[in-house]
């Protein structure tokens, strides 16, 4: 658990007392100042008591105080809040290992825009997990046989369903050339990942800490639209992978990639393809249809499941 040391001793000792089977499934740890300490595992939540037991009753739960919130913030910013001004504006910090910590508190405004968050009182650690093989069933469906490449794909799901885990594995398999299909015998492709939140590759000083494939380049902590253009200009990728597109400039950059002959695999928040493409920012990608495949992600007890739709059937 390389994320455990980030918590102050009082909290990490409680987490260590959890049953190991449960601890391995932890997806989120939520620390709220003066309120119960919460952990989320595959779809359910628990509070932790002072003794380290799990409970559903918030009144029995341990409540972290100001001192612990202060320590936690100090630790996740590497004792240097001033290096995190941009992150505080966006509301999250990514720590080594690709784990993301969302923050909430009182915001400071400058001319009506959020400058940063002060008095951070809520922390949400989202544990990043590498699950190799999670995209096994999906890869064969995305192969473009005529061009010996992959199809332009948009992966759609609500938050916390495993989008990032999925595209991490997709990138690894595409880069490695494990196509999972008899007739696909060509090698891996050059993959470029634009990792705005440092979540896909979990880069540490520019070097990915997750396995994203041998032919993969990562533009870390880079705004998506700008990063895609930079990659196309400088790294000649065959496939671009981006997380959570949603702004007009993202759509613009995706179109630019299309004109450059680069394939794009992107993710977006949503539940349905139609609904998503009616969003003003992304409508330019709907007509003419840019994406050849839409993948709707869903998670159940057995793991990830997905529904693959051809764009012509929309």
């Amino acid at each position, binding site marked *: 658990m390389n994320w455990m040391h980030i918590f102050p001793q009082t909290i990490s000792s409680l987490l260590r007392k959890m049953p190991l089977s449960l601890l391995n499934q932890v997806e989120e740890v939520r620390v709220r100042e003066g309120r119960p300490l919460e952990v989320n595992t595959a779809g359910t939540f628990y509070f932790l008591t002072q003794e380290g037991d799990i409970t559903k009753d918030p009144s029995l739960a341990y409540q972290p105080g100001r001192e612990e919130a202060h320590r936690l913030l*100090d*630790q996740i910013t*590497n*004792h*240097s809040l*001033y290096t995190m001004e941009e992150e505080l504006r966006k509301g999250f910090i990514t720590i080594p290992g690709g784990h993301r910590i969302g923050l909430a508190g009182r915001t400071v405004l400058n001319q009506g825009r959020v400058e940063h968050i002060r008095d951070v009182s809520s922390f949400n650690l989202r544990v990043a997990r590498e699950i190799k093989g999670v995209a096994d069933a999906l890869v064969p469906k995305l192969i473009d046989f005529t061009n010996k490449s992959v199809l332009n794909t948009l992966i759609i799901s609500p938050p916390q369903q495993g989008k990032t885990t999925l595209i991490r594995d997709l990138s690894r398999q595409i880069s490695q050339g494990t196509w999972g299909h008899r007739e696909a015998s060509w090698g891996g492709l050059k993959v470029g990942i634009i990792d705005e939140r440092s979540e896909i590759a979990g880069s540490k000083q520019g070097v990915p800490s997750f396995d994203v494939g041998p032919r993969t380049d990562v533009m870390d902590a880079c705004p998506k639209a700008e990063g895609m253009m930079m990659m196309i200009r400088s790294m000649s990728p065959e496939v671009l992978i981006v997380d959570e597109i949603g702004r007009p400039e993202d759509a613009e950059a995706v179109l630019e990639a299309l004109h450059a002959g680069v394939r794009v695999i992107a993710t977006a928040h949503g539940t349905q393809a139609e609904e998503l493409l009616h969003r003003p920012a992304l409508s330019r990608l709907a007509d003419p249809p840019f994406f050849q495949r839409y993948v709707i992600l869903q998670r159940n007890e057995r793991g990830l499941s997905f529904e693959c739709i051809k764009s012509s059937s929309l």
Partner: protein
Amino acid sequence: MLKLLGAALIIVAGTMAGWMKARQYANRPSQIRSLMQALKRLETEITYSFTPLPDALRRIAHQNKDPLRSLLMTAAEGMNDAMGLTAQESLHRALDQHWRHTAMKASERDVLHQLAYTLGTSDRRDQLSHMESAIRQLEAEEAEARDDQARYEKMFRSLGLLTSALIVILIY
């Protein structure tokens, strides 16, 4: 013969004590000066290079001589993951360990002690203003330290010898 040896010992010890006290007065202004320069460098590291605090402290430590060097080094080391200290605790711990090896006084220590509460915990603008105010306070201390040096350095140097001579005379 033995008496003479004793007298010589007393005089040597007295003179040495005087010299040491005098040296403290001589060292204090220059140590404050290098502390100020270190803080100015830290200011640059924070506001222009966005260097994380532990790295910045380590880098500045290498540019300085002891005792400042080990003070900054201990502060940086305390911020390791393994130690689990906050920036403030780590700085305070370093002050506790190394301050007595410096020639500086409690008022300079208070400035650093105070600064430790804010270092690393706010945005760049705020950090800059805190560091600047610390440097201004140190400037005032430095001026005072120079006055003290002019007034007491020579005095203590001769006082050591004279006092020990007086003791020897009284014993004889």
